Each structure stands twice: as structure tokens, then as C-alpha cells.
């Protein structure tokens, strides 16, 4: 049952089926339960077992076909159509009658068996009453974090405490830091997943879902929603939300649940951009978001384009917060690529005046960092790069004049030799000083090549030297043995 055509035909056929029997044993078992909504599918106990057995008995043909064990015969098809007919007729009837808990549970469990059924249903089946019931179920679902008994590992206690505390005060960097530990253990059940999926097929349902998440006193339901929905829907709910906590968790979920190499479609990127734009109105909040999401940009590769576009039209402090958040490194790597993606997106949308401002801020951040001079415990032992290189090329091309760039390169070339006149405590310090100047020279040498049209403005991956090391061996041997 994967073909959309078959689904469409069967939906039509099932809608007109008269009479339908439906999952009688399952409904009967549910009706005998004290509280079917709290009866989890994996629970032990007699009541749960009866429900489970009845479910399996009624839905056997569908379950078997889901496992790929069945080639449909007429009897199986009849069972399929009957269950689907019951499902559709029950949905149609919801607005006319009061939906009982056992029927709601039956609908959710059968929807789960049909897989992604909500998106296939004609809109008439998703009535207001159904949406209200699904929203109520989501809103009533409680999540809490606990540890394994009183003597659980210390690190678990402490991570939970830190996470809970961070949730209470909205400390997003700390939430992001513990996300990998906490988020995977928050597992919504199938009823919750189906209710969320049902809500997300209508605009009204999405708005309701965003409202529910906004009203929650913790981020746990939002994390659970992040597990149920795909990136596109998460971004839509995020864009509908008015609370930063919901927006943050949905964006963080979207990043975390997304395969590392996957990219987002244009609609999702637009939603993420719009979320960023909303948050940027609050500088303090934005600064927190950046420290949470942008410390290591490689971890949020999929949102870099949206991030870059969101920076267009923002004030200086917003851009500074973006730049300051990055934990700059001196080596080639994914962070450098991710920052280049972001800056490239910014460059494609921003007017020249704003680009100049951004490149100047980038250059200032880079100068202050100075290849991590203050924080480094290990001296530079090779030519270093920076995550900001793409923006530095922008600085050289769009801020500096041609003359300034040439003068700067000449000055740096001189400095490369003058550096040998200083006194050094040992060869390591000497090498480090040389590599520092050569590293600065690199990026401007690349920009000079771009300016004259020999190279494209992209992320430099080649190493440049102020001389040909194969021809000028004296210079090469004087400036370090690793230069070739």
C-alpha cells in the first residue's frame, strides 16, 4: 500500500463501504479499560495484554502487510477496506458526537498502523472537533526527566539538574551543551506522534500545536514534538510560535534530527530565516541563540544559509553576536565551510554598504582573535587558517582599496623577513612568529588573486607563499622546512 494511486482508490472505496464492521474486538477491549489514554502499548498487566491481543487479532492483515509478509488476496483487501472504512466514518462522525477516550485511542492506533494516513486524507475528515481532541491529548501529555533509581550515575544526576535548571532560566547554550545526552532519551509514544501528525495536516492544527508548546512550562514537549515531525513541519511550527523557548527547541531539534549531510528545502530555510529574524529583535536572546547554535557552526550546517540571509538588514550588534559566538579554530574543517556558507548567503542578499560593515566586523573579530594568541597553549606549528576566511576575502575585496591591499601585502611580506630580527626564546617561538605572519599574509594574497580575476571568491584551500619554494630554496629553508 505505498502507491498514492492505490491509496486514493481505496480511500474512495472505503468511504462508501456499507456496512462496516470495524475493529470490534479492539474497541471492545478498549471500552473495558479504566483509562485507555494512559494505557501504554508496551505496558504489562492483564488489561494491556487484552487490548494488545484484540488489536493484533483485528488488524492482523494490515500488520502483516506492513511487515511485507502479505501479497493481498480478496479477504485481506476486504479487511483493509473495512478498517479504513471504519476509520473514515468515525472521523466524519466526530463533529456530531462526543469522542470517547476509547475511540480516540483506537483512531490513533489504527492511524499508526496505516502509516502517514493523515496526509492522505481529504480535508473534510480533519474537522475542528478532531483537532481539538488531538490538541488536548498533546497538551495533557506530561514529560518528566528522572534518573535510574536513587543510586544512578553522578553524571546523570548532574546533567539532568543542569538541563532542568537551564530550561527554567532559558539558558540555551547550556541546553545545547547537554542536548546530545538528554534529547535522545525523550521518546514520545505512538499516540502522541499520531496526534501531532494529525494536527500538522491543517493550518489550524499547526497553530494550535504551536500554542500548546508556547504554553508549556518546560521545553520537554517541544523536544518530543521534535522527534515526531520532519524538518519542514518543525520550521513551520517554529515560525508560528511566539515563544523563544519553543522556537529554540524546534530549531535545535531540526538541526539535531537532520542527517548531517542533508540540506533543507527552500520553504524550510525561509521559515528558519523568519524565526531568526524574529529573535534578532531581542539582542540578548539572539546572543544566547548564537552561543548555543553557532559555537561550532559545523554542527548546524543545514541552517547556515538561513542564518546568513537572516543577518541581512540587521544591526551591528546582531552581526557581532554572530561573529563572537564562533569558537574560531586555526585548522581547515567543517566549521570553516559552514561559516563560508553562511557568509556567502549573506553576501548574495546584502547591499554593498551592509556587506562592508559585516566584513569590517569580521576583520576586527579576526584581528582580536589573532590566531588564538591569548588562549593558545600550543604555538602555531604550520600555516594557520581561520573560520572567518571567506569574510576576510570580502574585507580585502570590498573594504580595502586596491592600493591598500597591495600596500598591506608588501608590508606583510616585509614583516615575514623582519620577524627574524626579533629575539626568540627557542625555535618553536621563532617558527610560531613566522607562521603567524605567513598566515595573515595568506588570506590577503588569495584576495589579491581574486581581485585580478585569477581566482573565484570562495573558501581558499590552497596555500600561498611569497616565493616559489622550489626555486628559492634559501628562502624556503630560512622560513621553515615544511614549506614546499
Amino acid at each position: 500500500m505505498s502507491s498514492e494511486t492505490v491509496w486514493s482508490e481505496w480511500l474512495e472505496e472505503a468511504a462508501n463501504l456499507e456496512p462496516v464492521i470495524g475493529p470490534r474486538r479492539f474497541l471492545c477491549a478498549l471500552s473495558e479499560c479504566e483509562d485507555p489514554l494512559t494505557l501504554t502499548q508496551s505496558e504489562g498487566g492483564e488489561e494491556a495484554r487484552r487490548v494488545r491481543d484484540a488489536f493484533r487479532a483485528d488488524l492482523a492483515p494490515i500488520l502483516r502487510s506492513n511487515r511485507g509478509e502479505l501479497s493481498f488476496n480478496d479477504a485481506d483487501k476486504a479487511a483493509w477496506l473495512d478498517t479504513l472504512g471504519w476509520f473514515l466514518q468515525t472521523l466524519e462522525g466526530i463533529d456530531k458526537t462526543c469522542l470517547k477516550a476509547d475511540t480516540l485511542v483506537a483512531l490513533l492506533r489504527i492511524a499508526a498502523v496505516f502509516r502517514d494516513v493523515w496526509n492522505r486524507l481529504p480535508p473534510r475528515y480533519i474537522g475542528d472537533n478532531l483537532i481539538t481532541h488531538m490538541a488536548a491529548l498533546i497538551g495533557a501529555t506530561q514529560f518528566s526527566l528522572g534518573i535510574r533509581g536513587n543510586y544512578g550515575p553522578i553524571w546523570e544526576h548532574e546533567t539532568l539538574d543542569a538541563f532542568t535548571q537551564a530550561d527554567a532560566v532559558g539558558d540555551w547554550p547550556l541546553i545545547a551543551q547537554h542536548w546530545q545526552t538528554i534529547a535522545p532519551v525523550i521518546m514520545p509514544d505512538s499516540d502522541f506522534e499520531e496526534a501531532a501528525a494529525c494536527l500538522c495536516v491543517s493550518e489550524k492544527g499547526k497553530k494550535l500545536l504551536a500554542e500548546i508548546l508556547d504554553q508549556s512550562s518546560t521545553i520537554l514537549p517541544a523536544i518530543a514534538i521534535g522527534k515526531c515531525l520532519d524538518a519542514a513541519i518543525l520550521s513551520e511550527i517554529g515560525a508560528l510560535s511566539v515563544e523563544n523557548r519553543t522556537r529554540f527547541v524546534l530549531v535545535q531539534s531540526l538541526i539535531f534530527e537532520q542527517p548531517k549531510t542533508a540540506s533543507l528545502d527552500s520553504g524550510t530555510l525561509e521559515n528558519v530565516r523568519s524565526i531568526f529574524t524574529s529573535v534578532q529583535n531581542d539582542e540578548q536572546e539572539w546572543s544566547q541563540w548564537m552561543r548555543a547554535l553557532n559555537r561550532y557552526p559545523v554542527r548546524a550546517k543545514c541552517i547556515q544559509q538561513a542564518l546568513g540571509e537572516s543577518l541581512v538588514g540587521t544591526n551591528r550588534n546582531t552581526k557581532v553576536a554572530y561573529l563572537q559566538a564562533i569558537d574560531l579554530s586555526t585548522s581547515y574543517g567543517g566549521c570553516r565551510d559552514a561559516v563560508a556558507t553562511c557568509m556567502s548567503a549573506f553576501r548574495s542578499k546584502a547591499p554593498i554598504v551592509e556587506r562592508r560593515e559585516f566584513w569590517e566586523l569580521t576583520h576586527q573579530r579576526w584581528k582580536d582573535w589573532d590566531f588564538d594568541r591569548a588562549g593558545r597553549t600550543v604555538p602555531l606549528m604550520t600555516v594557520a587558517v581561520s573560520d572567518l576566511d571567506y569574510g576576510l576575502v570580502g574585507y580585502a575585496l570590498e573594504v580595502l582599496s586596491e592600493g591598500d591591499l597591495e600596500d598591506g601585502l608588501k608590508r606583510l611580506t616585509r614583516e615575514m623577513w623582519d620577524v627574524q630580527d626579533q629575539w626568540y626564546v627557542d625555535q618553536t617561538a621563532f617558527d610560531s612568529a613566522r607562521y603567524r605572519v605567513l598566515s595573515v599574509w595568506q588570506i590577503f594574497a588569495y584576495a589579491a588573486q581574486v581581485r585580478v580575476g585569477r581566482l573565484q571568491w570562495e573558501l581558499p584551500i590552497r596555500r600561498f607563499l611569497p616565493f616559489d619554494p622550489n626555486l628559492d630554496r634559501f628562502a624556503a629553508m630560512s622560513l621553515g622546512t615544511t614549506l614546499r
Partner: protein
Amino acid sequence: MADQDAEFLSQFDLLSSPGVVGLFDHFELVEVLAFRAGCPDPTNIFTIAVGLENGNPCTAEFLNDKRIRIAGLKDRFFGIYRSLLRVDDLRAALEHFFDNGVWKPAAESVSVGNLVAVEKRFVPADSIDQIGLNRVTKNNFFNGCYLLELFDLNKPSVRWLTDNPPALQELSRKVSEIIPLEFASLSDRLGNIIIQFPIDAVRAQFGIGGGNYQVEVAWHPQVEERELIATATSEHDKSIITFGQRKILSGQTTLCPNVGYGTLQGFLWDAGNDLLLAATGEIAFLRTMSLNSAVTGPEPRVFPATLDPDARQERVWLSSFPELNLIGSDPTKSIAEPIGARIFEEEQDNLARQHEFVQYAAEPKSRGVDRQRALDDLRELICSHGAQGVWLWDPFLGPQDILDTLFCNPTSNAPMRALTFLKVRSDVEKKANADLAASYRHKLSSLQSNYLGINIEFRSGHGPQGWQFHDRFLIFPKSGDKAAKAWSLGTSVNGVGNSHHILQQVDNAQFIAHAFQRLWSAVDGPANLIWKFPE
């Protein structure tokens, strides 16, 4: 002018001639000077002049913003004066000194001692051995340099400094914060004037290529190439194992085979000028690298710092037993391995004979500080050597001592043994051995601790099976190919750092380990077991 002075000037002329060793047009003169009220001339503490190519004229200046003052030398202050002299001006100053005994490199004269001109010497760059003179030379990182030196033999003018080592140390430290001249460790050079001629006419790199030792030579673009003689020699176990010599103009040339072990020394000889243009110290090449890797877990071991119920909690982050990986050529397939093992043994013996030790509480005021220092040292030894096991042997050993030491071992489940004789300090009431053992057991069993990764057995040596012992040792038993190590504590763990004692690595650690093992095996009955975790 004395002959040796004339020879000195002749060597100066040769070394400063353009293209011989460099293209010097100036010398950077750095003088560390002492000033004293009432004395018109400053005193030379140390002076170095370094040959410069294209020396940019600069303002002569003191490099120190404020006068350098040293505790204990209240009547003096110091300064570091940097100036640039043309080659001719430095030569004239030297000549004037040889003729008149007055050292006046610039407008003012400087008081110097009885300076004797000494023969030029070649100083290679540091290699596996550090060369003392490189602590006072400038950037000697390439081919090496020649030094001409006026040596203050008796040092009368700086006696007040050489006789006051703390002041000398402080002065050297303060100077090296401004410019890297560490003359405190070269006190024989105090009062001297050194002229450094960096070899900048040519660059030479000795290395390995295609199973051979080779050299690459490249000339300064403004110096005409001339024929040189390159030599390489490789030594191992005090024997010369390879030697090669080739004429070379420039480029790369092979000198001799590289047999895969031993150290290389290279020389570049300019026969036309009778000068070395490059020489290396002993160079060793990395052929095998051993990599220890251990996984650090997220869960710490927690335990109370003391047996007090309100004691603060200590944390030790645990790692797994380290795994050793070798990268590169397999050392066991080379004769270098057995020879290296024998050399290592010899060096160990030499070290042992030197009786290097650490002393605690040597001064009355240091006791409080030294308690912590001594415990830190013990913990560091345990961290460094205790992955395979730790044995602690001390007749006064009690629960607090075990917390202070063995609980701090970061290697998870490292087997640890503790052996006591249930002795207690004289100010503590003595209980019956069984009662004391029960009390120790209770204390160790009821700690506010998760006992994570703890693997300790605590026994007593008392009773008919055991015997008295007096010495205290921290032992790291032999494991695999690692020899046993042992440290004599010199006092009980409960007193380390409190009163004077010496922590000393002992010779024949294996004998100590055997002795411990004998007693440990003898007292393996339940009567001697105090506590064991896990049970």
C-alpha cells in the same frame, strides 16, 4: 697589541667580510648594564653583539621601561641597552679596548673586568642536546654561528653578583622577560662580551632521504656559490657506524647510508676560508612512536577527603587501562632494541647512583605547605605509574591514608594493595589489633563514596603469620615488560610533609617488591584481611 688580540681582530675581519659567513653591515649590540650611584660608568654584566644584514638604523634605547631593581642589591639598578653599530665602529671599539683597556662601544664607556680574547668557536643549533651558549645567543636555529668572545676570567667587577645566586637568578629572570638572555645558568659568561656571527651566507639541512643521510645546501641569493665539503657521521653506542663526505656546490647530495638507528651529525666545511658553515649537534630521527590511549569515562569516583562525616567530596575522573600502540618501524626487528635496553639499564644505574630525591619540611615554615605538596607528589606518582597496580607499605597505614593516596588512582580497577602493621601514632589511644582492624573496615566500608573503579585489598602484617616492618614504600609492581619501581617515603603517609623526610626512588625496586610480596602472601588469611573492595 698582544698577539691574541691581533688574532681576535683578524678573526673578526674574516667573519665579518661580506659573503664569508654572512652579509653583515651592522651589529645589534645588547648590553646588560649595572648602575650604581656615585660610579660614573655602568658595569658590564653581559654584552652581546649580533651581526645583521641590512641592519635598519634605529634609535639606541633602553629596552626596559623602568629601572630593573633586585632585592638584596639596593644600591644598584640595571638596564638593557640596545644600539646598532656599523661593522667598522664595532671593530674600532674592539681595537680601542685592546690598545687602551677601555670598552667604549658608543659615546659612554662601560666598566669591564679583565677581559681576555679567546679563539673563535662554532656553536651549532640545539638538537637532541641543548647547548648552553644558545641560552645567550640570538636565534641560533639554522646552520649555527661563530662566536668571538672577550672572557672575563676572574670577574672582579661582577663578583658582588656571582657571589649572590638569588640576586643573579632574579636579574636573569627579569632580563629574560624583556629579551631572552638567560645568563644565570651561564654564570661563567658574566662580565663577558660576545660577538655572534650567524651563518647566513648559506643554508644547510641534514636529513634522511631514500635510506641515506643527505644534505641540501642553498646559498644566499647575494652570495656567490663556492665549493664546500659536506660530512655526515652517525654514531650509535659510542661507535661510528657510518661516515660520508662529499664536495657540494648547492642542491642535494647523498652522504652515507642510514642504517636505521644511531644519531647523525653533519658538517659543512668551507676549505677556502677554513671555516665551518654548518654543523649540527646530534640529530635523532623519529622512527617509531608509541601511543598510549585510554578512554576516560563520564562518571567520577567520589569519596570523602577525610573520614569526618561532613568532609568535602573529592572527585577522581577515571580512565580505562591504557593501550599501547606502536607507529612506525618495529623496534624489535632491529639490533637497536637490545642495545638500547642495555644502555637504558646503564643510565638507570647512573641515575640511581646520583640519589636524586625530594625533600619535604626542610624549613620550619614550610610544613603546612609541604603536607599538600608531598601528598600531591605521591598522587602524581600513582597517576603516572599506577595503571598496572600500586602497593603501599606502611606500618601506620590507616583508612585516611588510603583515601589520600590509593583512592586517587585514576585508572579504573587498577589492582591496589595496602599493607599496615596497625600501628598508631603515640598521641592516639592504642586498641587491640582486631578492634582496630574492625574500626578500619567499618570506616572504609561506610564512606560516602560510589567506590567506582576501586580495586583495593587492605591487609595487616600482624599476628603469627606476619612480621614487623619499619620502612615505608610506594611500589609499582613489575608488569609485562615494565620493570618494578619503588619509592621510599621516608615517613608514614599520615606524616608526609609534616616533618622532615625524603621521598626517594630506590635502587633494586624488584627486591622491595619481592619483600612486599613475601609478607603479603604470608598474611593472606581472614585474620589479616582488613578490607577489600570489591569483596
